[in-house]
């Protein structure tokens, strides 16, 4: 058994150590780790309210005090040498746009890249992502040869679900067949791409004057 003296990038323990280091630094600055989401840190005082969201080594700051922003950025820079790209525009493939009305989130570039990689430049568009007359199941049609490309495609569709609730149902259906995809499943996946091509820029919109009323809808089928 050996004791690790220095935590190098790529080691098994590195991520845990990074998390410990960042967390202890933030806690020392008066941030509180939220119980509902451990990558969310909150600092509130009578004059300011600052939120810090961490994804590995990418950090988003939000709040109402620019002084507090500057303060925490200096502290982070002194410890880790950070880069500050300014106002949030692009984060993990999500495009963020700000306007007076609100903030919009979309994955247009990710979606277009996905379409380009699948060779979808000149195909016909469809208005819905799935055909209701076709129920997907483990059918007897010939197996789709390139299993790994099917899996990769579904993986990318799953990531696209971050801002696209409209394809989540069909993605869920398609991901049931990752072990043995058949031609039918592949055709259905291609239909999703044809749907996406009709509206690659669709995304979520968060208006600034939103009311705090939580509504939920639940259904089973």
């Amino acid at each position, binding site marked *: 058994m050996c004791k690790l003296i220095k935590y190098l990038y790529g080691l098994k323990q590195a991520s845990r150590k990074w998390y410990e280091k960042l967390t202890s630094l933030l806690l020392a600055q008066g941030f509180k780790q939220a119980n509902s*989401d451990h990558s969310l840190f*909150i600092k509130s005082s009578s004059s300011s309210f600052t939120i810090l969201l961490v994804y590995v080594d990418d950090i988003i700051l939000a709040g109402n005090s620019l002084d507090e922003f500057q303060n925490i950025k200096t502290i982070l820079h002194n410890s880790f040498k950070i880069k500050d790209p300014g106002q949030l525009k692009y984060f993990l493939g999500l495009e963020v746009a700000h306007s007076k009305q609100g903030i*919009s989130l979309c994955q247009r570039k990710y979606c277009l890249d996905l379409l380009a990689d699948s060779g979808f430049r000149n195909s016909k568009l469809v208005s819905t992502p799935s*055909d209701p007359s076709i129920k997907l199941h483990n059918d007897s049609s010939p197996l789709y040869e390139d299993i790994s490309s099917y899996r990769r495609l579904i993986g990318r569709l799953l990531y696209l679900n971050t801002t696209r609730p409209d394809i989540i*149902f069909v993605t869920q259906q398609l991901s049931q067949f990752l072990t043995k995809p058949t031609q039918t499943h592949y055709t259905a996946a291609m239909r999703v791409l044809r749907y996406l091509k009709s509206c690659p820029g669709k*995304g979520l919109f968060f208006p600034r004057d939103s009311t*705090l009323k939580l509504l*939920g809808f*639940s*259904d089973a089928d």
Partner: protein
Amino acid sequence: MDSRRSISGQCFFLGKTLISWHTKKQLTVSRSSSEAEYGALAAATCELQWLLYLIQDLQLTCIKPPIIYCDNQSAFHIAANPVFHERTKHLEIDCHLVREKLQAGVMKLLPITSQAQIAYFFTKSLLPQPFNVLLSKLGLVDIYQPPPCGRLLHNEEIGDDKSSSRDNLLPKLSS
């Protein structure tokens, strides 16, 4: 479909913005549609509780108690009181989380007509017309493609916003 298990779907709006959505094949086979609905309701309750914790952590307060809409009457009754013992005694115990949270006043459970049930979007493959109706209610925006003039006001049927959105519409029409 091969496994005979149901699919639960849920979505949550904060104000008029969709903030959380989910589609998942349930873990167990259900013997009735109410059982499947009740299972979906339990999943939705867990998500709601987490959202409430998150809102609390962000030091915000909801103006009204949150509401979950469900279109299955018997799922309602199972949540309200321990009746139908014969038909519900085999339900997973964790599903009764719904009843507990209801009694604690964490949320309200309200019925909804099938036409207004947005969660259908997450459990069914739909024809273009209903698909587009529900899609417009989700409030997705394509900032690269401005909507054509005179589009539908989305979320008109959600909750009690009906009157307010009508009122908003009227002065615009007259001007």
